């Protein structure tokens, strides 16, 4: 299904831009934070509690959401703005394949920026207490949440002229505000399912809303459905 030449071109375009440097700086914020903690932590500080707050409150719901949203929108939005999307849809590739390729490229670019930051943050914050599961569970949460965000961003960039604004409203108003105090609202929050996977190993900051298996299924389903909706939109909307 993945159209590899389009994947390579999109990935290169996404990574070799000035905005990628800015997004890289944003992704580096948790590293800086973990470094400050490593240098000046309170005596007797609970490293796992700090790391849990870092991942659950900063990394998944804010850094990962914003980076995936911007990159996911850029993957298709830039082609729409530059008018090159006409050449893309004129190729004998299926719409579903093109959207899946764009989402895959955006997801890869997002992970290139986020995963090193997550690993370095864990190494700095947990010092000698780090173990594979304290990196793998958060990495799984970040990976699946960003896949879903990239899918939503790609779909939004085909459905509206203001995908970032709508994405920001969702991340900030729904996920960041309503879903934090309304238990049922968190069921409609991508970040909540990403955090559910993180909480499997790091429950100190917040308890998971669902178990890991439903979280994986729901996030994968969000990515698949938005991919299908994106393909539908690519065939129907005025580009």
């Amino acid at each position: 299904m993945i159209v590899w030449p389009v994947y390579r071109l999109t990935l290169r375009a996404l990574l070799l831009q000035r905005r990628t440097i800015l997004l890289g700086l944003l992704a580096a914020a948790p590293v800086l934070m973990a470094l400050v903690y490593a240098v000046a932590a309170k005596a007797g500080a609970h490293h796992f509690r700090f790391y849990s707050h870092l991942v659950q409150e900063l990394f998944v719901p804010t850094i990962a959401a914003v980076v995936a949203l911007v990159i996911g929108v850029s993957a298709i939005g830039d082609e729409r703005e530059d008018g090159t999307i006409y050449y893309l849809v004129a190729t004998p590739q299926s719409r579903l394949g093109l959207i899946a390729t764009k989402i895959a490229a955006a997801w890869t670019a997002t992970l290139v920026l986020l995963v090193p930051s997550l690993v370095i943050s864990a190494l700095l914050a947990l010092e000698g207490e780090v173990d594979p599961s304290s990196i793998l569970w958060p990495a799984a949460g970040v990976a699946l949440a960003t896949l879903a965000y990239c899918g939503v961003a790609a779909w939004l960039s085909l459905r509206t002229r203001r995908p970032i604004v709508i994405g920001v409203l969702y991340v900030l108003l729904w996920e960041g505000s309503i879903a934090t105090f309304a238990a049922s609202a968190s069921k409609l929050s991508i970040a909540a399912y990403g955090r559910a996977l993180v909480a499997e190993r790091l429950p100190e900051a917040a308890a998971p809303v669902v178990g890991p298996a439903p979280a994986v299924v729901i996030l994968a389903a969000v990515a698949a459905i938005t991919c299908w909706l994106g393909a539908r939109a690519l065939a129907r909307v005025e580009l």
Partner: protein
Amino acid sequence: MIEGKVHDVRFHRYDGPRNGRLAALWSMIRWSTLRALGAKRGWKAKVIPIALTLVAFFPALIVLGLRALFASSISDNLATVLPYSDYAGIVGLVILVFAVVVTPELLCPDRRDGTLALYFATAISRTDYVLGKVLAALLPLLLVTVLPPAILYAGNVLFATHPLGYVQEHTHDIPRIAAAGIAMALYFAFVGLAISSLTGRRAFAVGGYLAFLIVPTIVGGILSNNIEHGENLRLMAFAAVPIHTAEALYPVAPDSGDPSNTAWVLVWLGLIAVSALVLVWRFRGDEA
């Protein structure tokens, strides 16, 4: 027989009224403000600013509605259930989102569409342009920072048993409401415009503005609880700076352990000053 008509379509000198620099500036401010709120654009561009403006009024309207309908059956004193000092904190997130949506709209399209050169070819100078855009950002922001608590105040006066006595008792709240609203609007306008001036793409201005406000807030919040002498890192809460500055205008002591009101006001001043410098830097040269 085919009849033809020749139209005089040559370029002519403009011979209409010349209203001067201030009129040009006012025209730019007016249309920038209206455009940021979705005027002369499709309904989709209007929905978000209008919805957010309405949400900013909700707390005042709910309290006043309860007072109108159920004042006799609710035991709590509804006149004091929503203090003016708390209003900024309650609708702070709505104001933040409103600013994030509206301010990039004022600068990014001009840079992206290449209309800056057209502006500077008129009576508007670079300084006028920046000042005009600051005012154009302030006007819609004042709609959500000053007007809702002002409506609440007006409603409280109307519902008071002795309206004149209420006004006498709460005279000081009128300048406080105005000053708090202006302080919040100034902060969001300057910071939003400074970040928007760095890019021609509205989407990245929105993302950058959001990241600037939210990420340091979370970083400061987590670090302040976990590192030695980290209390002052709470001042990194850039999203909360205007709210604390607005609250500092009321005679309410900050929570124990929180930075002082003076510290919040200094951060507010500092960020506005840096933002103003960024705007001057971005619009000083030929490249702008």
